[in-house]
């Protein structure tokens, strides 16, 4: 089982440039049902994508998300549109009624994301990202840029603000035979579509997810809010957490726009303390995430 995606997930791609096409090819090969792509002016033409059984299928282009939804019943979109137009692409998907919008694009201006959040109010779409690796439910679908083969189907949910650190985590889990239900990268920006709490709620509801790894970072208070949620609602599922940036200096942006300690707030130390107090298995070394989960599951 999994969260957010299932066998009925029908994906379109917005922003099929070089990177977009590369990743859509990978997703399709993994088994994700990609049903179309939006490229204004290309309506009526198709492009080839590989299937898991090494065949090829012709995927149609559409002029707009609305047309793509009308013709394909797509319910999910993956966005690679450059930062200059990413916010517009998200709003187009939301306007067309796409239920799950995953924005991979990095470098989206913060004010654009504020406008997107306001635009989404009262509508029935969920946004993951931007500036994120996307999500994967091993064996079901991969809607993102992560290397699919490191994952195994299983019972551990993974939610993370980071990209490669999520792969590191998954690598450790898989090496210990701990498969994953769904792995979600929520993105490293200050304003994102789905928070830790949003994703944890889904994991809590999913009967097949038995435990969760949460990979946090310095900056903001999303980890603290997640800790509150976990202590109140997730006592039945062990949560293992690592916070990156224990040695980061204050006031500097560590790659991710969200990873910045300001005014002494949002330090790793503070976050780790709060998480511990809320009954979460806090890991101090990033090398111990897998091991700690194995132990937590044995209890």
């Amino acid at each position: 089982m999994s969260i957010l995606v299932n066998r009925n997930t029908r994906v379109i791609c917005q922003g099929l440039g070089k990177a977009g096409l590369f990743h859509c090819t990978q997703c399709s090969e993994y088994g994700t049902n990609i049903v179309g792509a939006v490229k204004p002016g290309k309506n009526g033409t198709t492009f080839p994508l590989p299937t898991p059984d090494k065949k090829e299928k012709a995927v149609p282009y559409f002029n707009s998300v609305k047309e793509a939804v009308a013709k394909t019943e797509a319910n999910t979109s993956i966005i690679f549109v450059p930062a200059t137009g990413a916010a517009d692409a998200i709003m187009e998907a939301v306007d067309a009624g796409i239920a799950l919008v995953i924005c991979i694009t990095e470098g989206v201006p913060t004010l654009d994301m504020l406008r997107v959040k306001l635009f989404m109010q009262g509508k029935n779409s969920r946004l993951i990202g931007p500036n994120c690796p996307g999500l994967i439910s091993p064996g079901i679908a991969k809607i993102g840029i992560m290397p699919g083969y490191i994952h195994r189907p299983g019972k551990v949910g993974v939610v993370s603000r980071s990209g490669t650190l999520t792969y590191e985590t998954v690598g450790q889990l898989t090496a210990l035979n701990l498969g994953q239900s769904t792995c979600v990268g929520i993105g490293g920006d200050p304003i994102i579509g789905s928070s830790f709490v949003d994703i944890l709620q889904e994991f809590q509801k999913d009967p097949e997810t038995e435990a969760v790894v949460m990979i946090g970072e310095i900056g903001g208070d999303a980890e603290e809010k997640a800790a509150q949620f976990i202590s109140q609602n997730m006592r039945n599922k062990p949560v293992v957490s690592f916070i990156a940036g224990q040695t980061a200096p204050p006031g500097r942006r560590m790659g991710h726009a969200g990873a910045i300690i300001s005014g002494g707030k949002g330090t790793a130390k503070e976050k780790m303390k709060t998480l511990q107090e809320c009954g979460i298995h806090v890991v101090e070394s990033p090398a111990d995430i897998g091991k700690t989960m194995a132990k937590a599951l044995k209890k």
Partner: protein
Amino acid sequence: MKIHEYQAKKILSEFGVAVQEGIVANSAAEAEAAFTKLGVPTAVVKAQVHAGGRGKGGGVKLVKSAQEANSVSATILSRPLVTHQTGPQGVPVHKVLVCAAVDIAKEYYLGMVLDRSLGLVLMASAEGGVEIEEVAQKSPEKILKETVDVRYGLLPFQARRMAMQLGFAENELDIVVKTMQGITQAFIAYDCSLVEINPFVRTKDGKIMAIDAKILFDDNADFRHPVYEELRDNSEVNEAEIRAAKSKLSYIKLDGNIGCMVNGAGLAMSTMDIIKRAGGEPANFLDVGGGVQQDQVIEAFRIIVSDPHVEAILVNIFGGIAKCDLIAQGIVNAVKEMGLKHPLVVRLEGTNMEMGMKILSSSGLKIDTATGMADAAQKVVAAAKAKK
């Protein structure tokens, strides 16, 4: 991205904010002329640097004659300014702002930031001045807040409500409301991440104005603001950091002796963390990005070793989009091309890991490979210690 006080004041005045009268000067002679032009008995000479704490660091001085403006500016411009935000080496001062001095009756604080949960927030306090951070910590109730909808900006009633709470008189409301709205408008129009007026003052003769101003831009919005480039002053930024940015590498210099090269910001931060846990000190944060290319690897090595404190280097790559064999070839090329003498520990995981490891081991170069992050950190820390 940070800009100077004089630039921030110019932007705010475009939006109707009353700012203290001032003239920017590039030399002592220009400062002297500025004093004369202002035609005031007393002026303040303020060093234009991005760092805060200028006053306490000796970068803000009162002068009473054109001649004094000249000599004081000459001193300020002649040496790096050291404040609690600059580090002991200080930052160069290339410009001073000569302002007409005012007698301050009361100091207020006005500032707009992005709050991750509330969105845009305008903050104000009747206890402005240099100790505002302490006020925020010790008595947060003294900081008033209004949430601003990015579509409508700060609404007049919100500004009025805040101004009244701050204790402004009826005849002062218009100018205070205009200032607050100006902050909001500038914030949105220029894609800022911070706009701050501290202090915002009432002078003894009843004038209301901004004495200091600070603006930060959202780097992500640079594509729609060519003006960022015009306002950019990189003289306070570490040279290696500027160089890294040109190659799309994210580099931050730190104080340790172990250089690191990692793909991905989260993994890069964790690599720093694990080096510290192994008893070492990271010399830098360096994220080569998820889709790192070979030529970036070489440039990354050059940047790392440009720091003379680096004694050993750790490369930690989790290949996803980036393929380990290509990275390994990049490492081998870089070591050969540069004649790299530093002990080097490489940890590769993920896509094409075996091929990558083979390239490293068959290169004939002295490259130590590691399995897992903990092993890698221990090896590089041991290598750095052995060198001492």
